[in-house]
């Protein structure tokens, strides 16, 4: 008889119509600006630069090694090495990026930069709300905009950040031990290092908008 299949289908849509009022499983819509889905820890969007401590420019972990720039598949990272050095996360004097730009209109969120970074300096952000009315300059994030604190990193990726911190702490301890060992015979050198670190000119604020 024609129509039995149609009637079955009608019953199914009617069932869904009524169940959508009772079952949360069926009405999965989330009213976006008011409600938000819980943040998934593994989520990634665009990269950011991690800094330790309170000052973004002083604590930046990046040492401008330019590996990420080279490995980035769509070539959206642009780095300019500094002329001078300053102490990095472990305490060794290192270069720092005088300029670190990511064109997020080109970035494809593949996180290969994170994988290749040997200094745990670049990590993936979860921020997706980045609208701008200038599609060229507005989507070009400079190093100030890219810098986020380690606390923020802990907030968005707690497990990963803890692992990174443990590794870094171990490295710092190792460096400190080495320094202590080196300091014992030659007491003059740590002061010299400290002096050179202090004399490192901080990057000017005017550079970033």
């Amino acid at each position, binding site marked *: 008889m024609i129509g039995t299949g149609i009637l079955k289908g009608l019953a199914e*849509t009617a069932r869904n119509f009524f169940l*959508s009022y009772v079952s949360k499983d069926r009405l999965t819509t989330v009213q976006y600006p008011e409600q938000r889905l819980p943040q998934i820890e593994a989520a990634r969007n665009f990269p950011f630069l991690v800094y330790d401590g309170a000052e973004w420019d002083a604590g930046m972990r990046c040492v401008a090694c330019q590996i990420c720039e080279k490995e980035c598949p769509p070539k959206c990272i642009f780095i300019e090495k500094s002329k001078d050095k300053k102490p990095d996360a472990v305490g060794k004097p290192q270069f720092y990026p005088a300029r670190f730009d990511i064109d997020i209109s080109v970035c494809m969120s593949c996180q290969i930069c994170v994988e290749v970074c040997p200094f745990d300096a670049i990590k993936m952000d979860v921020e997706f709300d980045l609208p701008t009315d200038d599609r060229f300059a507005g989507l070009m994030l400079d190093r100030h905009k890219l810098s986020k604190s380690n606390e923020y990193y802990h907030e968005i990726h707690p497990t990963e950040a803890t692992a990174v911190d443990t590794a870094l702490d171990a490295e710092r301890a190792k460096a400190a031990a080495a320094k202590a060992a080196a300091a014992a015979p030659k007491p003059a050198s740590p002061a010299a290092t400290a002096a050179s670190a202090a004399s490192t000119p901080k990057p000017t604020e005017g550079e970033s908008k």
Partner: protein
Amino acid sequence: MIVAAVNAGSVDQVFVLAKHALLARTPDALQPLASAIISIIPLLVVFPSLFAITTVLERKGLGRMQNRLGPNRVGPFGLLQPAADGIKALIKEDVVPAAADQLVHFFAPVIFVAAAFVAYAVLPIGRNMVIVNLNAGVLFFFAVGSVVELSVFMAGWSSRSKYSLLGAMRAIAQMISYEVPLVLASVPAIMQAGSLSTVDIVNAQAGYTGIWPHWYLFTPWGIVGFGLFLIAATAESNRSPFDLPEGESEIIAGYFIEYSGFKFALFFLAEYLGMFATSALGITLFLGGWSAPLGISLFTVVPSYIWFFAKLLGFICFFIWIRGTLPRLRMDQLMGFAWKFILPMALLNIFVTGLWRFLPASPLNSIRWIVCAAVLAAPCVVLSMSLKQKKKLLIRTYHFAE
């Protein structure tokens, strides 16, 4: 007069009385004109508003069927969505293709809307509430309905687009082939009532046996007639699963693909008006028009126009439900269905109505019922089986390789 209006039963007649009161204050010479204007203006307000309500209802209903919320941002529960849509349609640019026949392109939506409105002239929306009680009312309705085809073809042809031409071709083929079963499906009601006047047909169904109404739906030929009418009406008003002229996934929007802005909105309006009008005719012919569904005082005390709109709303919900469920038919299948199934059944139904009329009703009503139902049911089953068999439609079983 005022005393009469206070009477509970006459809440029903409040609009009629108001019209009479207004007419009494107009000069005699202007009375025919004033009468027409007073009748038409509410119509021009009520049905477009119903259209607005329907669009939001449809979107919300479809949404719920699809486990979505539907529009819910404009106004409380998204009820002001049609207003937003209307404003959008009004301020959009009106693009007319350079190659289009400008005049015809302009008049197509106007004629469409006008024709859709004219059909309401003969539809009784309440007791004593009909604009003109033509003695050939049903005939008038179908005649006006065919103007719609003209405007559709005007739109499709004048746009000079291949898609709109295909849409127009489909629309003409479909509307003409479903016009026939639509008319034939209405004939039994006309036969039984013995009149082409819509008011007479409603009055013929007005009484009650106990509390059971005398609607034509509750006769064997009425059920079949109503079913056929419903199918034909769906096709006639281009609703899913017969929305081929618009065939969104194939020919995008069919005949009105080249319209934008307010003209597009007019097409939209006219389509819904056509759907309401056909539904209203179905209510008139088979569902007792404005009469209450049960002969109990709780129901009969409700004004007649409320019953009419309640039934209309029922029709609208049914159309939305169907739209949310079914995929679209193909052109040849649609035609085949019209000519091979609906038409024979409609013809048979006319014969059965005659049988029903001449079989004695008083002593053995149930026998009359059974005989007529049997005469209708057997061919219906046979026809649908043959339709299915010829196409070899089967739920298949599959084998598996390990």
